[in-house]
């Protein structure tokens, strides 16, 4: 158990590196300071979790190679719309149309997930290939994420701060069978 905790600490650090890079990219993109922080990465048993039944605005990006699976950035619907409206330059959330929310959050997802996945690939020194991000509007997490082979999820609670507004989201990493162990093992080398 202690071993797992240590690995998760290491994973938290890896994710934070990627997230940090993503924050810089986002700040560049919208021309103002955006902070991104992942306080802790947890390992969740999907059979004992309510996490998958929640709905929200999500972006899913697949990856293949030494490890495979899907990475997801998900926001509660209202938070996701507020974030999109802040990044679009202060348009009122109710005036943003779904296709506009979709475009903005797809790019945000792409940047954040690129950061996380890039960091993991970097640590693993693995050669991974990636899919393009796909946006899901108000869909349940389990439907958007697709199958979860291992029955285990790496969950990183991500907190964004934009224009003194705090927006909470989650980064979920669902790995194919055996991939979680491979990732965590690689961290200890």
């Amino acid at each position, binding site marked *: 158990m202690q071993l797992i905790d240590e690995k998760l600490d290491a994973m938290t650090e890896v994710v934070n590196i990627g997230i940090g890079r993503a924050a810089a990219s986002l700040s560049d993109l919208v021309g103002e300071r955006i902070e991104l922080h992942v306080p802790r990465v947890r390992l969740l048993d999907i059979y004992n979790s309510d996490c998958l039944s929640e709905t929200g605005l999500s972006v899913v990006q697949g990856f293949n190679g030494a490890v495979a699976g899907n990475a997801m950035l998900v926001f509660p619907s209202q938070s996701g719309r507020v974030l999109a409206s802040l*990044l679009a330059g202060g348009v009122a959330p109710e005036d943003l149309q779904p296709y506009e929310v979709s*475009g903005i959050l797809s790019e945000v997802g792409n940047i954040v997930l*690129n950061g996380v*996945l*890039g960091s993991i*690939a970097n640590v693993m020194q693995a050669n991974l290939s990636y899919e393009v991000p796909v946006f899901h509007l108000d869909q349940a997490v389990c439907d958007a994420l697709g199958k979860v082979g291992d029955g285990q999820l790496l969950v990183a609670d991500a907190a964004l701060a934009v224009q003194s507004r705090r927006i909470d989201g989650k980064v979920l990493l669902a790995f194919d069978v055996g991939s979680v162990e491979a990732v965590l093992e690689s961290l200890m080398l």
Partner: protein
Amino acid sequence: MTQHEPAVDDAVTLDLVPLGAMVIDADLRVIQWNRTLADWTGVSRQQASGAPLRELYASLADGPYERRLREMFDTGLPVYFSETLHRHFLPIPPQGGLPIERMIQRTRARLLPGKRGRALITIQDVSIQYHHLGELKAERQELLEAQRRMRATNRSLEVANSQLIEAQQTLKVSQEYTDSILRSMADMLIVLSPEGFIERANEATTTCLGYAPWELQSRPAQMLFADPPDALIPEVTCDGLTTLTNLLRQLERDGRVQDFEAQCRTKDGQLVSVSLSGGRLSSSRGEPLGYVCVMQDTTERRRIQTELARSQRLKSVGQLAAGIAHEINTPLQCISSSVEYLEMVFPSLMEVINEYAALAERNPNGGACPLKLANATTARREAPAALADATTAVHRVCEIIQAMRATTYPGGECRVETDINQLVRDAVVISRGRWKDAGTVTLHLDPQLPKPRTMPAEISQVLINLLINAGDALHECYPRDGQLGSIEVRTCTQEELVVVEVSDNGPGIPEATRERIFEPFFTTKPIGKGTGQGLAFSYQAITQLGGGLTLQNPAQGGARFVVTLPREAAAEPTRVAAGAQVATPLS
């Protein structure tokens, strides 16, 4: 596997894709440039091939594009440039003829699998979709605006509605107020249409004429009236058409009528005299709306007028009587003096005649006495009685005339010291004809009675009224078994009051009518006998003098009226009234 399908050239494949597509290397140089891009940008494949992107489009050097593309080569991670945050990747005129400033593109870049140094960039022109979406958005905005206006209209409608309800409420209150006024009116009120139909009638109308409200609604108004009977056929009762026609004509001509005398007919055919006043109703634009009429039931007023006329006639008769009494008085005094003289000298004359008669008897053939005394025998026997009768009668007539003069003396408003006892005696004399067949009057007069300052004519009338009433009461049960009834008049002083009591032993006054006996025109006497004014007048006269008139029902039966007068400023009696006796029975 003997034969392979020839590999399709990547460039051909890219040309078939309906997206702008290019392949670049890690130095961001163009390796492939598909036909769609060439068509869109006007940059041919030859021009583009081998050229660095930033040379083809300097705008890509600015901003995040180059950096993120380079990161893609470093990490292998795909890049997504959303249409919302970037609007466009390359300055390509949009499809569908939209102006260049409306261009919107969605761009993705990812490494080509198996070709580490190559990346595919696809550009999707979504300008027309966004244009369409923009229109939808504008329409939605308009819809929202319309919705907002509708809500505002709705709110103002609600306000107007509540104001309307409030106005209706006010109107209802006002209507109820008007209804209550009409309901409370003692006079009849009818509203007629311009054609003479009844539109409204208040409760006084329906009550007085005996109809239910619905029986009058929208009926011709002539049903309410009765025309004067036809002179030729008086037994035929006409309906009120002529009356109504005259009324409407007058209203139409003058705009109003005042004191229009008419007869109304009740539902059961009774006639009611009314005095009608009314006016024409018209709208603010002057259109005729009909007529409103107020009718006052004058049946009672007419009765009062008749009574008044009769009372005035009686007054004239009284004045006439006073004049006659005055005129008769002088010759009467002469007759009275002469009769008294005759009575005085008659015994001497009788003596002479008797002596003469004795002389004649002694000398029957004496030539000195030609008188035929035989004829004078009856005269000598009856003359004294006749003279005595004449004297009594003359005295009686004198008494009556004196009493009449006292009663009818026009006292006016002037108050004088009044000998109440004398007024009682005069009243007894005047009223004698009304009680002598049914009873006797006994006087108990206080010789020390003070003389209050009153109007004697009024007091006299009051006393006569009380005595007449007492006499009428006695007539109801006397004479009985040869017995007559009794009236007692008593005068006395009680503290500061001079009191006159007139009592009878008649049937008394029933409890039910006691409260009303002082009301004008209230009478229990047969029609034609009583006017119902005697006690009312008496009550009014006594109270005006500061006194009181009350009715007592004594324990022994009968009725007792008590007149009280203030003795204030009353002078002490200067003389005992002549002839005043205590307990003098009169008959």
